[in-house]
């Protein structure tokens, strides 16, 4: 009995729809929100929406491969918060000492990015080498980074006037699209290239699909998993920098809500939780979905309190749709 593929034409279309529904959702959202409030498609609102997406884009870039592996990082938001205050506090201190604006920015940026990467490595090592499930390891780190953020600065800090010049680049526009978003998209496209064209990146899909197979086939499973977590830490720090420059201030809890938003974005974009399937390109779309919802809810006047409910529902629906229920033998815990 040959078990070759006998998918009907209708089945093929259904499959394509399932895999690309996120773009349809974006279009749908745009239509809905414009109907609810025509101001939605105002040029200034569109600019706002686009620039708002940049930090989330960076964070989603880091989180996507983690979900492709079948893991999760609940500490993303807190790490982002810690990096957020770290970069500004450090900038101020370095500026006090050196008096160089751009210098202090870059030094602080590099140190913070390194710190974020290191944080990712730490989480990765504990998860991979000590076999601690990622949700609990990242849960633990969530509180560690939360505390770290509060220790670095227990209240919000402002970017001093003297240093404001280093944030000017954030306002550069190319048409309706701001420089930050362009940089963020370039970044995520670069990571996408890495994920789809290098041995390391392609292995991530194999590991997420069947870790045992990948291991026996000779893939450096442990090393690659840790690298994914390291890059995630880097992205948290990079996103934190975007947030700091955009707001021209830093706060020890500013990133906390991003964990939920990032996961929603990646999941809404279509990356499956089962592991082994997903795409950074899809996450770009997912980020826009979340941004549109956030922005749209504001414009239409929906109470901000509904946001959490909406994101939660998005996750449930997206995950329920994309989970492979046909695999009967899989035990889900």
């Amino acid at each position, binding site marked *: 009995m040959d078990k070759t593929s006998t998918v009907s034409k209708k089945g093929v279309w259904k499959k394509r729809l399932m895999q690309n529904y996120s773009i349809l959702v974006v279009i749908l959202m745009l239509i809905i929100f414009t109907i609810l409030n025509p101001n939605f498609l105002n040029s200034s609102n569109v600019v706002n929406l686009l620039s708002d997406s940049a930090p989330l884009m960076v964070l989603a870039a880091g989180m996507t491969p983690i979900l492709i592996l079948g893991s999760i990082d609940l500490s993303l938001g807190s790490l982002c918060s810690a990096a957020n205050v770290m970069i500004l506090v450090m900038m101020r201190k370095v500026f006090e000492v050196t008096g160089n604006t751009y210098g202090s920015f870059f030094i602080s940026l590099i140190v913070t990015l390194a710190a974020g990467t290191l944080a990712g490595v730490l989480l990765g090592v504990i998860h991979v080498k000590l076999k601690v499930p990622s949700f609990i390891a990242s849960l633990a780190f969530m509180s560690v980074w939360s505390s770290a953020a509060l220790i670095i600065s227990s209240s919000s800090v402002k970017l001093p006037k003297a240093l404001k010049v280093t944030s000017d680049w954030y306002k550069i526009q190319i048409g309706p699209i701001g420089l930050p978003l362009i940089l963020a998209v370039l970044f995520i496209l670069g990571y996408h290239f890495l994920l789809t064209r290098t041995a390391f990146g392609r292995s991530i*899909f194999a590991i997420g699909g069947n870790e045992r197979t990948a291991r*026996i*086939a*000779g893939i450096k499973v442990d090393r690659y998993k840790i690298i994914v977590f390291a890059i995630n830490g880097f992205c948290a720090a990079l996103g934190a920098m975007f947030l700091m420059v955009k707001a021209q201030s830093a706060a020890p809890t500013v990133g906390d809500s991003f964990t939920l938003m990032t996961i929603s974005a990646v999941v809404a974009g279509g990356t499956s939780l089962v592991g082994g399937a997903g795409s950074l390109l899809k996450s770009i779309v997912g980020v826009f979905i979340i941004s549109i919802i956030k922005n749209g809810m504001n414009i239409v006047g929906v109470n901000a309190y509904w946001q959490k409910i909406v994101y939660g529902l998005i996750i449930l629906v997206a995950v329920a749709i994309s989970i492979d229920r046909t695999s009967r033998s899989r035990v889900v815990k």
Partner: protein
Amino acid sequence: MERKLLFSAKNITKSFYGTQALKGVDLEVHEGEVVGLVGENGAGKSTLLKIIIGVQPQTSGEMFMQGKPFAPADPMAANKEGVGMVFQEQSLIVNLSVGQNIFFGHEKDFMKYGVVNWKKMYEDARKVLEEVNCGYINPKKKVIDLNFATRQMVEIAKVVNMTKSEHGDHKCLILLDEPTSVLNEAEVQNLFKEVRKLTAKGHAVVFVSHHLDEVLEISDRIYVYKDGENAGNMDIKDATEEKLYEAMVGHSTTTEYYHLADQRKPEEEVVLETRDMGVSGVFKHCDIKLRKGEILGICGVVGSGKEEICSVVCGDVKPTSGEMYVKGKKVSYSSPAQALQDGILMIPMERHAEGIVRNLSVAENMALSNAPLLSEHGIVLKKKVDEQADRWIKKLRIKTSSKDAELISLSGGNQQKVVFARALASEADIIILNHPTRGVDVGAKEEIYALTREVVAQGKSVILLGDTLDECIGMSNRVIVMKDGLITGEFQADADEKPSQVSLVTLMM
């Protein structure tokens, strides 16, 4: 002594995706009888047991219990009819007590005013244990605190209890699947005592084991299965180990099947060597030499250690003793990735669990082990991946709708070919074939044999774990036999002078 017929199975067949595990077997068990069931791996014993206990249905054929048609939908239904089974894998819940395990699922029977009356349950548990002469076991003890032999007894007590009905003289059929694999000799004798007490009461036992001496000791009659068919059934007074071996292995298949004409002599160079290697509790004192261009077969029953040796050699598991040398260099691997760098790669036994990534395409599955070969400046070139896929699809005659089709859409045999292609495309020159033809149809099997010969002719070396003894002997230049974690024999298997299966089986069991 005329015994009443308790259970019978007639002409049972079972097919899975194109392979026939059972081709029409019969089994008859009388009251008070111990029926031994022997046969090679894959002969169909476990499959038949699973059908009898209701884990899976037969494809055709009938069963009767106490004269009435018997077709259990699940193990619980089988239990109600008086059939119980002690599975090879322990089925006790280790953090619960003995008594709680015996009555697991039936706690409701002991409920009083909404509370489970443990006192009564433990009293009943004691009675159950005494029935199988295990009154010395304290039912309140947690299973995790018992040794394996005691756990085995608890399993038997549990099964006997589950299958007994309240209606008077109901005789039960108890199936024991390899019950002695974790027992020492004294404990085996103890088990036999319990079995005899059971049969003295009129119950019947089916005893499946690869320890032929034990089967000969305890059985009244013995069935031999081979390749999914009845290969003989004899009374204990007529049975000897030699007769059993003969029935179990029978004649070997044609030389063409294994392409014996292409079997070459290996070179002198030793590419892989293990010295006194062992994994605690699994195997020990293993000295193996693999020569360049050689196919080295390892035979043994499940649990003999042959699969675990392969896990160590391919880098998946670290040995607890001994050393390994690859091309003269001492090595110690902590992952298969490291072993691959020295040219060692395994094609695993459990294709679904460890061999494929189901949702990746055929081309991608093939490229798992040799990405660096397909890259330029660190970037994997899709062109090369596709070329590789096309090449192997053609060469191995892989039936697939396209090289980008999801691997799960291919048949088992074709999936295996893809896994093979992956190994061959990689730079590995020491390939471990772990049951490479399992779940593969006959035509594909022969192609794999031809391929293996070709691979070895190119100077690569192979360690082969065969699906059947026949395959192992037919394909290998040399065969090592393992039993209970030790190497018990080594045979030259030149093309013109293959050892007989009987001589191997003797050392396996």
